[in-house]
């Protein structure tokens, strides 16, 4: 029971990590709370499902969903946020909420109001350590997440492009004076963050065996809470906070069985962090 819940928590945390990473990267370069990111996540699930029905390959459908979401992310940045950036910060935020609602409605109109079955037969090895065993779908989620996080880490810490991305997030004007096309870097950051959200959408679709129009509603606000918990714009902090919340949710509600709505837990954590450590777990003072 306990180990089963830990396994659930790891899988949940992994999906949170993939989703919140994009959010924290976007905040890093534009200082915008990108609520519509959860719409990209749901878009990824839908695109993944359609691609899977045509291609009948999980891996190919994952790739297609990530590419489509990357493109969608660039469109959001170019046509929604960048034109609004010179205005007070509440304006792009309202734009973002509006886009998110519009996306949910668009999914409903195009795909219908009901959940669509996402039936994949996952043939994947089952990972385990001692008494802790992950089921095949959990192993898949964990493996894909770790692979993507590893690639992102390599990109950011080992490449010139990653150096330019980190520098742009710290001080775009100064970075541009060294020949870095910071507008391109911002778009690229959106593309990568959105591709990760798309992957998260596909993984959740596969895990829950369904895709539905409002599947992004809870992640939309929960991921904001996780980003604040980890420290706004802090990538390792977001990953840590994601796994903490994933584990806390499954353990406190599944094992300790406290009578508390599961989805509210991230907010309790966020409120505590705002009260006692406003810069977040790993945020800089």
């Amino acid at each position, binding site marked *: 029971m306990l180990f089963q819940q830990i396994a659930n928590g790891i899988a949940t945390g992994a999906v949170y990590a993939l989703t919140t990473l994009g959010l924290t990267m976007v905040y890093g370069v534009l200082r915008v709370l990108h609520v519509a990111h959860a719409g990209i996540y749901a878009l990824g699930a839908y695109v993944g499902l359609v691609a899977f029905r045509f291609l009948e390959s999980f891996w190919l459908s994952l790739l297609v969903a990530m590419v489509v979401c990357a493109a969608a992310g660039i469109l959001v940045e170019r046509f929604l946020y960048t034109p609004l950036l010179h205005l007070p910060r509440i304006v792009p935020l309202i734009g973002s909420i509006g886009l998110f609602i519009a996306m949910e409605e668009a999914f409903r109109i195009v795909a219908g109001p009901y959940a669509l079955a996402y039936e994949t037969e996952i043939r994947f090895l089952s990972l385990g350590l001692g008494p802790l065993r992950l089921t095949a779908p959990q192993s898949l989620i964990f493996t894909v997440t770790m692979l993507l996080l590893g690639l992102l880490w390599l990109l950011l810490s080992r490449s010139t492009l990653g*150096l330019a991305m*980190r*520098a742009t997030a*710290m001080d775009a*004007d100064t970075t*541009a*004076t*060294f*020949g*870095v096309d910071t507008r391109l870097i911002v778009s690229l950051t959106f593309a990568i963050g959105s591709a990760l959200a798309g992957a998260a959408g596909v993984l959740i679709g596969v895990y829950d065996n369904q895709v539905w129009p409002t599947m992004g509603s809870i992640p939309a606000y929960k991921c904001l809470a996780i980003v604040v918990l980890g420290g706004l714009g802090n990538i390792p902090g977001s990953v840590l906070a994601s796994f903490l919340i994933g584990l806390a949710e499954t353990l406190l509600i599944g094992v300790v069985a406290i009578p508390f709505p599961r989805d509210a837990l991230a907010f309790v954590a966020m409120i505590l962090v705002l009260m006692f450590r406003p810069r977040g777990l790993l945020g800089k003072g």
Partner: protein
Amino acid sequence: MIPLLEVRNLEVTYGEFAAVRGISFDIRDGDLLTIIGANGAGKSTTLRAVMGLLRPRSGQILFRGAEITREPAHLRARRGIRLVPEGRRILPDLSVEENLRLGAYTVPRPGDVADGIERAFTLFPRLKERARQAGKTLSGGEQQMLAIARALMSQPRLLLLDEVSLGLMPILVEQTFATIQALHRHGATILLVEQNARMALAIATRAYVLETGSITLSGTAADLAADPKVKQAYLGG
């Protein structure tokens, strides 16, 4: 001969306030030009407009004969213009070495980047000791060294220096000016903007005096240093 940089009737405004009011000047290869003036005279604004961080209201900026007035900063950087900004603007969470690597962003060959880092460490051995430290942990003097070294990584055609002596201890001011003079002797073309008029005029070849957004005097650095008006206003009588 075409000047390296030519600025014609440059006007830069912040809202209603005209910070730079139609100034013209040029820099030739090998010049060490200085623009001196009081705080708020428009010196930093001029440099930021040349780098492309501010949009001029009117006027023209030409680099090696090509008009760059509307070109974004990163393309000007690729033409070989580098700015050491006021306040140094070290990227706080990047290490010293990463700051230098960013300075070499336009350098295509990894071998040349490595050579550049070696040159920077030879020029400022202090930076070598601190290579792995985050930029924000450096002292003000070390940050200034890093800001200059970072701007030199791409071997720029034109180096813009904005108030490099500001906030440094007197001994470090002397060292910084000695470094600038050495760079100039090795062939660098430099536009130096300074409140420390005495030091700037001592090492410059030519000079302009900027007062409330307009150029009021120009000439060789030696002539300006001997000018009674300059002496009285900027050199403490």
